[in-house]
């Protein structure tokens, strides 16, 4: 099998976010996160629960196994906490604050985005990871304009009720995998994808990111590549989200 593309490395890196999750509802937003979640379920995390993006939970064979309308999601599942969400991010800062609401002043933004959506509730209730298809200094900023997903410093400032279930796990980008295990929960590189230089990441990040202890993201196995290419994404849409 020929060499893995960057998108395929990212799919496997996202799948790895779910390692150890067991019988947990995972909510991947976007293409690469969805492929990663389904890959994890087909391989090392067979018990993951996944929705169709609407109200149905479908098992690995596409069989309907549950009902989960938005009201149940917001009133029960999120506060109950047995969930791992992977959200996108227009901005992320050093301590894991995320913005999907608006760019600029909230009262009159330069660019209106989606709105905070469920990010405030997700981040104080259960494990949250992020996916950024194009790692750049416009995304990784010193301070986000509107704190939607709550980062470590914001949770600490808000007090014990914000921190109690707060768990911003990792960020996967087209360049690497990051967590918030640096000093004061600063973002640091866990691994850089094969072929990515530390300087490239530093250049594409507005704040100083800890890079010293970074390893190399693992290559997909040949079985994982077969599943991605033949089963999960035969039309190759992943390469449009992450340019080869």
């Amino acid at each position: 099998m020929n060499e893995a593309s960057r998108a395929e490395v990212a799919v496997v890196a996202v799948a790895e976010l779910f390692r150890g999750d067991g019988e947990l509802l995972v909510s991947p937003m976007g293409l690469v996160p969805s492929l990663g979640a389904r890959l994890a379920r087909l391989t090392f995390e067979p018990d993951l629960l996944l929705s169709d993006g609407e109200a149905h939970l479908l098992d690995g064979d596409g069989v309907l196994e549950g009902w989960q309308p938005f009201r149940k999601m917001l009133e029960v599942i999120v506060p109950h906490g047995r969930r791992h969400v992977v959200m996108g991010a227009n901005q992320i800062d050093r301590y894991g604050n995320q913005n999907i609401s608006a760019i600029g002043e909230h009262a009159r933004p330069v660019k209106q985005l989606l709105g905070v959506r469920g990010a405030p509730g997700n981040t104080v209730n259960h494990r949250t990871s992020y996916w950024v298809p194009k790692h750049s200094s416009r995304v990784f900023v010193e301070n986000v304009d509107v704190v939607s997903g709550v980062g470590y410093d914001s949770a600490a400032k808000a007090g014990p009720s914000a921190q109690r279930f707060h768990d911003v796990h990792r960020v996967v980008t087209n360049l690497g995998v990051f967590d918030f295990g640096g000093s004061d929960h600063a973002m640091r590189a866990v691994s850089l994808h094969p072929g990515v230089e530390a300087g490239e990441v530093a250049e594409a990040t507005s704040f100083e990111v800890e890079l010293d202890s970074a390893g190399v993201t693992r290559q997909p196995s040949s079985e994982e590549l077969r599943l991605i290419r033949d089963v999960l994404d035969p039309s190759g849409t992943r390469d449009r989200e992450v340019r080869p």
Partner: protein
Amino acid sequence: MADKTATADEVVAELEDGMTIGIGGWGSRRKPMSLVRAILRSPVKDLTVVSYGGPDIGLLASAGKLRRVVFGFVTLDSIPFDPWFGRARESGSVEVTEYDEGMFAAALSAAAQRLPFLPTRAGLGSDVLRVNPGLRTVRSPYSDGEELVAVPAQRLDVAFVHLNRADARGNAQYLGPDPYFDDLFCLAARKRFVSVERVVDTAELTAEAPVQSLLLNRSTVDGVVESPGGAHFTTAVPDYGRDERFQRHYADCAKDPERWPDFADRFLSGDEKAYQAEVARFAKEAT
């Protein structure tokens, strides 16, 4: 028993300037679009609209009907942003109350239960508290001492929702996968209006669908508008899915100030019948 059927224009005639209107559905899914289109034809203005927002917000923004939007997001789902809402925000022409999605549900629940507020963890540590300086927290009176967000009740003057079927009494039914928050919108409102694809006899409601699909009972509905295609261009599955081609056309025209007048003239200048006829013509042009 009272026959609550009415036309969209009769229902919208009950609105007054400055009212707070709740609109059901979610994003570009099962929105009461024919009622929204009737608002566009009416003189009513300065509305506060409470919505899990989709093109309902965009269209109302396009006609300058909005004073304030209470929202957690505005999206067309298959197209991330609604251009009209973006323009309204970026020009500062609309005020907003932006909530987390779960806080939004709590606000409606509090109103439905006649409570002043409901506590939730959602919002703590986020800028939702910064951009809504009127929001307060509340401390648990029990030994845990937790400090939580006290989401104030969001009462509505009027609720508009779109379901698949209803009887003339106002018992209403959804046949798709998700009820969204339509029952809560009705419980939070003083006046409640439901548009449906088809008005049927009461017995017919449960002839082919389970009783659990009866989302609204007649005590929470004041008017029923039969409006086939009334959710267009959003989804009303299983009756129809989203009209993606039309939605793209809407978004393209909304983005371009030069093209919008033609769109509004073609689709929004007449009544609902004229709209549906023009939509049918638009669909034919593709084939």
